[in-house]
């Protein structure tokens, strides 16, 4: 049993579950206490000792099923005829053949198949997997190869020949009906077993990579450009934004709690604490300094060319808005308008985005004019920016040859804590054509290319951490 648990723990680790030595030891002791016979208790015992958070629970469940359930049920389901009468008929096939032929030249695999010997079949599959190395399968692209190698190992390609021979022999001896039955049942079983082999190999792979496909998708979506997503991917991206936001929040709260900051002497608390000591201040209390949360002002270009990137930016910012003391957001094309309230009222950021982008706030059908939008912002909002404010501008900087008004950025940079420009265009095209990036860049503390979720995440991380 210990051997099995060791292998099982190994599989969990390969699925990125962290299992420490002490947890493994607990699992052994727990398994010993509850025993193997009570399946449910055994599972609970392993789970409670090995899995320490809800997050890994799902991984545990699927790996446990793959590993401890075995293929028995699957094989039986594949081979057995669902029709009761037929099944009873078929189960006698082997004995009938034994009577008809004095010597049955059948490979062990054929015998097991015809006798529906699930346990034996499972054992054979296991041995074949070990011999061919299918139990070490490392990539889903090898599934075909290992299915082939397993079939070869099981002497699969000889089966048909053997069966044909036996059918002919039965016919030769005059057992026409039996021959037909063998042909039918044998054929069907062989076909089903081919599927079982494939399934077996797939499970071997899943044991070590149980949510491979999902993880693979998530990973790739993080580096997918905003400009080339289809609606399905868009929805998945929104999910990923949510998980990214959750992770970031958890990390920030941990960190904020951990940093102990001492401020000035807290006289009241000190006296209170030392009343028992006759007011002699043995224990001194300090005020705790709170780490100031940054204020965020986001200016998003929502012209057609960059709208997608702006949408993700706003979505992300509003999913983590607790991390900031205040978030204000503006959208612009040529006019500039504030959408802070919109996001506050609309709990669902998707709906808020929809309203913001359909022209309810500003005219979104004009040509981009960064210069005008900046000048308006300067006139109306500059006084709200102070040295705690981080200003993020998201846009491609393509100004349609209008006056760039980059002096606005100079003024903002002087007043703000930081001015960050995020551009969904690649750095190489900054400054080409009507792009005013080089001019704007001079006044930015940071300018990044942001065209994927990963890039976006990095920027937001650097602001809050």
């Amino acid at each position, binding site marked *: 049993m210990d051997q099995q648990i060791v292998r099982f723990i190994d599989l969990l680790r390969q699925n990125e579950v*962290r299992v*420490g030595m*002490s*947890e493994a030891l*607990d699992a052994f*002791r*727990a398994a010993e*206490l*509850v025993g193997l016979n*009570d399946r*449910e*208790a055994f599972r*609970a*015992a392993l*789970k*409670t*000792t090995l*899995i*320490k*958070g*809800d997050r890994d*629970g799902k991984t545990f469940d699927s790996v446990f099923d793959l590993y401890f359930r075995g293929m028995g049920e699957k094989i039986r389901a594949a081979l057995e005829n669902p029709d009761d009468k037929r099944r009873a008929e078929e189960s006698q096939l082997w004995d009938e053949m034994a009577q008809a032929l004095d010597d049955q030249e059948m490979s062990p695999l054929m015998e097991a198949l015809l006798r529906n010997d699930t346990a034996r079949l499972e054992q054979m599959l296991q041995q074949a997997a070990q011999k061919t190395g299918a139990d070490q399968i490392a990539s889903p692209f090898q599934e075909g190869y290992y299915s082939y190698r397993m079939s070869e190992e099981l002497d699969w390609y000889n089966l048909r020949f053997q069966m044909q021979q036996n059918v002919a022999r039965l016919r030769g001896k005059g057992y026409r009906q039996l021959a037909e039955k063998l042909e039918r049942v044998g054929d069907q079983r062989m076909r089903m077993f081919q599927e079982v082999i494939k399934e077996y190999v797939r499970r071997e792979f899943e044991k070590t990579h149980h949510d491979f496909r999902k993880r693979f998708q998530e990973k790739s979506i993080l580096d997918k450009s905003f400009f080339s997503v289809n609606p399905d991917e868009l929805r998945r991206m929104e999910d990923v934004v949510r998980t990214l936001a959750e992770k970031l929040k*958890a990390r920030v*709260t*941990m960190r904020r*709690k*951990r940093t102990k900051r001492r401020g000035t002497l807290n006289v009241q608390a000190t006296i209170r604490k030392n009343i*028992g*000591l*006759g007011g002699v201040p043995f224990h001194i209390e300090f005020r705790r300094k709170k780490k100031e949360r940054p204020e965020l002002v986001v200016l998003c270009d929502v012209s057609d060319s960059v709208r997608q990137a702006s949408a993700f930016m706003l979505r992300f910012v509003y999913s983590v808005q607790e991390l900031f003391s205040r978030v204000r957001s503006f959208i612009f094309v040529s006019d500039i308008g504030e959408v802070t309230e919109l996001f506050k009222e609309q709990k669902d950021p998707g709906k808020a985005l929809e309203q913001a982008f359909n022209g309810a706030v500003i005219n979104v059908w004009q040509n981009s004019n960064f210069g005008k939008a900046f000048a308006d912002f300067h006139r109306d909002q500059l006084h709200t920016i102070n040295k705690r404010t981080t200003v993020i501008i998201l846009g491609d900087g393509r100004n349609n040859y209008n006056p760039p008004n980059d002096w606005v950025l100079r003024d903002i940079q002087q007043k703000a804590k930081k001015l960050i420009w995020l551009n969904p265009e690649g750095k190489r095209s900054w400054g080409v054509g009507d792009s005013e990036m080089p001019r704007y860049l001079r006044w930015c503390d940071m300018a990044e290319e942001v065209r994927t979720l990963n890039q976006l995440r990095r920027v937001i991380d650097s602001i809050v951490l």
Partner: protein
Amino acid sequence: MFASIEEVIEKLRLQNYIADRNIATVVFLAARLNKPILVEGPAGVGKTELAKATAAALDRELVRLQCYEGLDETKALYEWEYGKQLLYTQILKDKISVITESAKTLPEAVDLIASQESAFFSERFILPRPLLRAITNEAPVALLIDEVDKSDPEFEAFLLEVLSDFQVTVPELGTVKAKHAPIVFLTSNNAREMSDALKRRCLHLFIDFPGVEREIDIVRLKVPEAGPRLVEEVVRLVNHIRTLDLKKLPSISETLDWAKSLVLLNAGDLDPKLVETTLNVVLKFEQDIQKAKDDVRNYVVARANQAAGGRIPH
């Protein structure tokens, strides 16, 4: 102590707690392996209740420590009774002057006082808080550290010593070891992730909303005056509500409250109007109530039609 998992289920049932096999296994292992249990799950599924029931099943006193932000050792472990110490010094002033009488210089007098120090830093002047009480108690106890996720990370680190060895260190007295290892429950609502170190020392138990069957059992047990039909309908409806996208999903405690309220209102069955007026027992946010209202009404009507269809053959 429990001899088997069945015994755990049995004994907890006697305490009006219905444990499934998973819960029972974890409790059984905790008792056998002397390990604390970290219980997580949504609010109101009976995490605290489990600790209480287990304590009662084992016939142990339950020592409870409620965690909150800012909880520190002096509130959780022990505190020196400064007042009492001060009082004693005042009363014993004469005695002290007798002791220091022979001293000629100040350092000598301090030395003499120092030699008597242990009289003042003894267990006499210690005020035990829940953790120390749980450890030093003559009879074995059950210790419940409630809502441990609300405490600070520093406190969590301090808990580690207690949880792994069942001992605590009081600098002036030395290390106090538990006479009997208590059975420990920590509950968490996941306000924050607990540290790996703490998790490693605990058995982990996630209690989710129960299945319909188990919840029916629970309601029957806790609200015996409710009719079987009412219980089933209430549980099914609550389970239906849990599938909706709400701010706060109703938990077992809400189901129980609802069943009790309906019994008080003399309801034998659910009807749309009754449900609508009592929905605020189950849902705690106005927003949720508004959101769920129509859906719940449709559900109740559909169920009623179904039942009627079943009874009266066409």
